[in-house]
């Protein structure tokens, strides 16, 4: 037992941690590379990157529930839709200022999640998944039927170009729209990263790992499940507002079941629980669908299905799921683990 063997073990890990230089540099490099996209690629590719970034924010929302809090969801497209329509309506009827659209859309998503959340969190696991699926479908049909608000199946068009900085012109240039989306996506990423490191982030991981134990140390666990749902709803709505600003058109198809399913696919491909994995997964999914799909003349669904099968077989833990599975795919001559394994005891 450890009580007697503690003398042989290394000293306890130091409590103080240095500033995470490596992570900061890595995030900086990635952002820099993303910033170079409009200078490197043509308009079509830049537009695809824009969609991928919006989708990455939605994937982070799905991952917050599915990967971090352990509540797999298929209904986030509904809150994405709430954000998209709210952003579009604010832009059309009130103000073309981006910040205002983003804030109001996020608030609308938060309210929608607060109202519907208590219903959803009554179940966990598959039950939760089914309830969120129903919520997603309700959102989809509501968008198609509320003609006076959403424009019905025709959708909402005529969204004015978004104004990023007050007093300047609206953004019509594909590259500028991309930068607008990139800045908001990076801010969202940093906010989520902060959330995950916070006490609340630890609470959510506890909820995923062992809800019963969390209750036994005094947590009213339903409250935290609802809180996770509300945060995720707000984040999905933020993505929706970005969608409205970048596409300047919103229709019920933007919040169909497929959107939720693809967001979940992005999370699985990227690595459940990892935020950068979810973002990368979103990039992979969008490019598979929009780019490769065109090369192979409209076989995007087939390619996505193939991608899913490949991901589950080759990288069951996703792109961000640790080095061991990559090493298994691309074995080097002798890895460190092999060395340890053959050392005679």
């Amino acid at each position, binding site marked *: 037992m*450890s009580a007697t063997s503690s003398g042989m073990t290394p000293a306890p890990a130091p409590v103080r*941690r240095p500033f995470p230089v490596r992570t900061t540099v890595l995030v900086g490099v990635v952002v820099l590379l993303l910033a170079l996209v409009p200078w490197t690629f043509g308009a079509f590719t830049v537009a695809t990157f824009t969609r991928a970034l919006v989708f990455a924010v939605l994937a982070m929302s799905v991952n917050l529930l599915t990967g971090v809090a352990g509540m797999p969801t298929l209904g986030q497209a509904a809150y994405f839709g709430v954000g998209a329509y709210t952003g579009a309506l604010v832009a059309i009827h009130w103000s073309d200022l981006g910040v205002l659209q983003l804030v109001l859309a996020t608030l609308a998503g938060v309210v929608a999640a607060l109202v519907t959340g208590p219903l959803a969190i009554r179940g966990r696991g598959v039950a939760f998944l089914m309830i969120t699926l129903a919520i997603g479908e309700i959102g989809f049909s509501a968008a198609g039927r509320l003609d006076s608000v959403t424009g019905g199946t025709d959708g909402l068009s005529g969204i004015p170009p978004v104004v990023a900085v007050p007093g300047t012109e609206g953004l019509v240039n594909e590259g500028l729209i991309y930068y607008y989306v990139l800045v908001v996506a990076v801010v969202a990423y940093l906010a989520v990263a902060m959330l995950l490191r916070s006490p609340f982030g630890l609470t959510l*991981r506890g909820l995923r790992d062992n809800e019963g*134990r969390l209750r036994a*140390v005094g947590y009213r666990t339903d409250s935290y499940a609802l809180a996770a749902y509300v945060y995720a709803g707000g984040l999905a709505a933020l993505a929706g507002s970005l969608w409205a600003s970048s596409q300047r058109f919103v229709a019920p198809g933007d919040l169909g079941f497929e959107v939720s399913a693809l967001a979940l696919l992005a999370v699985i491909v990227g690595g459940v629980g990892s935020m950068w994995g979810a973002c990368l997964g979103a990039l992979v999914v969008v490019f598979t669908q929009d780019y490769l799909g065109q090369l192979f003349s409209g076989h995007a669904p087939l390619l996505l299905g193939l991608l899913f099968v490949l991901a589950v077989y080759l990288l069951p833990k996703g792109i961000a799921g640790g080095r061991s599975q990559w090493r298994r795919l691309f074995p080097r001559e002798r890895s460190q683990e092999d060395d340890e394994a053959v050392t005679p005891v």
Partner: protein
Amino acid sequence: MTSATPALRVEGLSRHFGSLKAVDEVSFEVAPGSRHAVIGPNGAGKSTLFALVAGALPATSGSVWLHGDDVTLLTEHGRARRGLVRTFQHSSLFLTATARENVLLALQRRHGVQARPWGAVRRRRALLEEADAVLERLFLHHRAGQAAGALSHGERRQLEVAVALATSPSVLLLDEPAAGMSPADTQAFREIVLGLPSKVTVLLVEHDLDLVFGVADRVTVMQLGRHLLTGDPDEVRASDAVQKAYLGAEDTSELFVDEEGA
């Protein structure tokens, strides 16, 4: 003992599953600071009684009192907030979190910051130091950075107690803490129970009678859902009724041997 308000009082507590009376009109008191054990043969209703006291299971009738307050209608987390905190028979931990984070989850709730969405946990110096102090008390400080899932069975049992202890309980409920432990681990665990702060009242449900008689100052014996006897360890050991309950006969030769396997 009757002068002070008991830390825990169980009165006429019953739980029926259909016609089965798993716990039937059980009453006893646990004095503040006591190390109180509940024993009984298999099927005596120990585990059900434990769940009723912890609030994991609603009682059919009867009441549970914590420091003179009726907590019968409180939920499990409500009782935990009042200081009545349990451990689990089968280690119930946050397996992907480190040992330190397991303890932090209990600590941050006690400090009321569990819903705060800003400020990194690992930069909260006071919380971390407190977590490490709790781990050190349970001889786990050298494993603080390891995932709970990577700990040995014995270490998980220790962490199980650490998580409960981090909530600063006034009454600690230990559910068969020695289950599945080797004799050496059990021996070490005995030291841990003996080393718990004296202001913490401990109610222990346990199969291992060596552990029970090594740590307990009061023992309650249950049989077939009913309360049989509460007394000092010596009284219980000498009781004919207890020996009959365990063996159904006068022969006592096997009483303190291999109780776990049954």
